[in-house]
């Protein structure tokens, strides 16, 4: 296990006051909040600073952390000394019930906290659970049966929180897209008393795909074409997510031309569109015959692509 420097995570000195810690956290939280930030690592950074703040804002936890951390450096291998927490009394849980992703380091120091609120009623519906799942784009086009595995915290007989792996076989409905939720009735937490079980909400996202970019229901793909197909027009075969299509490239298509295939995006009541973006790819001139062809083009055209550029001498 690696030691985590919570002061470094928030960019404050070890001597920082509570107010300085709060200001530093707020600034970073606004910058990296996953609902606001477009940075690729925003979610991980946000968890890191959230964890750091949860410890440093709490005088008891901060004192305990300072005690074990006075010698250690960030990223160093770290094992908490035996009985390190003797003499510290942590008052209550005080933890955000939703911060289920505490690091191993955090759990070793402060333990794992059970999530969620307690139901007061004798008979109540179980908790609704949330999880994220990644699917293939083709699953959204055709629908699919997939096996997913989820890590869920649950209580063992001694009341400790343990991670339980749960395998679910689910039907992915045709037409679902990233950001949407799939509700599975009765697959959440167990009910209390005679109450029914809660529901499980799966938030869908797409696995990264080298060939296609996805925006809502619309799908984008690059299509390499030759200079003569671009100039003269052509009909080419395009492997789209919903199968091969013959696509007409209009004559005079430059690189970056967007050709819309209506309704060939992600299916649904209002299906998305597929955009094919042309990329002109030039063939290498290796043989004498190929070089001659380029020279013939140079002779045939009076063309300067830099005609509009002001060239400084």
């Amino acid at each position: 296990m690696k030691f985590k420097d919570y002061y470094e995570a928030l960019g404050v000195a070890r001597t920082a006051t509570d107010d300085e810690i709060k200001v530093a956290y707020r600034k970073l939280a606004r910058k990296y909040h996953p609902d606001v930030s477009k940075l690729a690592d925003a979610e991980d950074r946000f968890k890191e600073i959230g964890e750091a703040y949860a410890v440093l804002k709490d005088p008891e936890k901060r004192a305990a952390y300072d005690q074990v951390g006075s010698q250690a450096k960030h990223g160093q291998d770290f094992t908490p000394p035996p009985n390190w927490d003797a003499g510290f009394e942590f008052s209550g849980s005080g933890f955000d019930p939703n911060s289920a992703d505490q690091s191993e380091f955090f759990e070793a120091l402060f333990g794992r906290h059970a999530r969620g609120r307690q139901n007061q009623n004798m008979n109540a519906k179980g908790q609704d659970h949330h999880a994220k799942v990644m699917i293939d784009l083709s699953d959204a086009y055709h629908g699919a049966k997939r096996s997913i595995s989820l890590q869920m915290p649950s209580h063992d007989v001694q009341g400790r929180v343990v991670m339980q792996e749960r395998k679910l076989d689910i039907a992915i409905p045709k037409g679902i897209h990233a950001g949407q939720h799939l509700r599975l009735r009765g697959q959440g937490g167990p009910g209390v008393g005679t109450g029914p079980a809660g529901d499980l909400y799966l938030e869908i996202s797409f696995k990264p795909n080298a060939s296609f970019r996805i925006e809502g229901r619309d799908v984008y793909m690059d299509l390499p074409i030759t200079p003569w197909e671009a100039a003269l027009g052509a009909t080419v075969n395009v492997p789209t997510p919903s199968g091969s299509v013959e696509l007409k490239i209009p004559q005079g298509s430059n690189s970056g031309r967007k050709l819309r295939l209506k309704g060939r995006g992600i299916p649904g009541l209002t299906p998305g569109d597929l955009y094919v973006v042309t990329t002109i790819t030039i063939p290498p001139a290796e043989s004498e015959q190929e070089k001659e062809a380029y020279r013939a083009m140079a002779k045939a055209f009076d063309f300067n692509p830099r005609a509009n550029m002001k060239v400084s001498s």
Partner: protein
Amino acid sequence: MSITNIQILEGSIVENEIHMTITELCHATNAAEEHVIAWVYEGILNPTGHSPDDWRFSGDSLQRALQALRLSRDLEINTPGVAMVLELLDEIARLQK
């Protein structure tokens, strides 16, 4: 670690197929009812119906409510602030299209 296996589950796409009552929305998001009511009066959520008891929230409200909840909790923003952040995020998404 134990492994549980069950049959193939069919779900519903929340955004397309589901309307929720205030109780269901609160249960799904773990948000307090008074928060959801405040979000409706601030225009963050737009259910049909005239009083909390007969409000029906469209499936999109789930994502919206989760966002509002995270923003108010993580950044300690009050309700008008959350509404403004969400409107600005919508505006950014619209401009980027």
